[in-house]
């Protein structure tokens, strides 16, 4: 079993990166790998509640992320500094996500066998 960390650094819907990474994380988790998804920088916007992706012809990211967390396929982490820099807090997020400091995030990345970014 490998320790995968999927890193999301861009906001949702401008591209499909967030959704595709969530789908990849879901498949890795279903293959019994250890999977974490980390939201940094503008990636924290992926988690924001109140999104309406259908309005721009995009597909939801928060739905698959909720499925990941509920079925224990992956652990979700968000960086506190990235949230604060964007005037967001854990209460603004649609999906229950563990908040890590930048230092803790760097430990998480340091322990990964495989890092995939989007």
């Amino acid at each position, binding site marked *: 079993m490998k320790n995968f960390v999927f890193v999301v650094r861009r906001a949702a819907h401008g591209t499909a990166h967030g959704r595709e990474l969530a789908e990849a994380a879901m498949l890795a988790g*279903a293959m019994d790998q250890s999977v974490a998804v980390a939201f940094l920088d503008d990636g924290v916007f992926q988690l924001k509640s109140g999104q309406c992706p259908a309005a721009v012809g995009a597909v939801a990211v928060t739905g698959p992320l909720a499925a990941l967390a509920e079925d224990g396929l992956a652990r979700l982490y968000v960086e506190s500094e990235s949230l604060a820099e964007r005037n967001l807090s854990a209460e603004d997020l649609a999906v229950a996500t563990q908040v890590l400091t930048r230092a803790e995030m760097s430990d998480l990345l340091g322990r990964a066998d495989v890092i995939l970014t989007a």
Partner: protein
Amino acid sequence: MRYAYGDKSWPHDENGYLEHFESWDEDLAAVIAAAEDIILTPEHWEVLYFLRQYYADFEIAPAIRVLTKAVARRLGPEKGNEAHLRRLFPGGPAKQACKIAGLPRPTGCV
């Protein structure tokens, strides 16, 4: 391309997946199942309604291994195993069951 039953019809894509998730009903499920050579039993309906709820909640059609885990967690391991699901849907539990349940083609499905 459309499925038809009585005076009802439903558009589908080139692989037979329903275009509009919300337009699904049990008549349509029976039409698609017949085209796939499946006679629907209560065990089939359980999986179909499970998939409808999963998609309504999470907006994603689950791949086979994801589906197996989700069914095991919510309906128990005797239902959530690949052998049981393959017996019900020999054409591929995710691929075929999603089609009959009116979901899009599952992620990671070729």
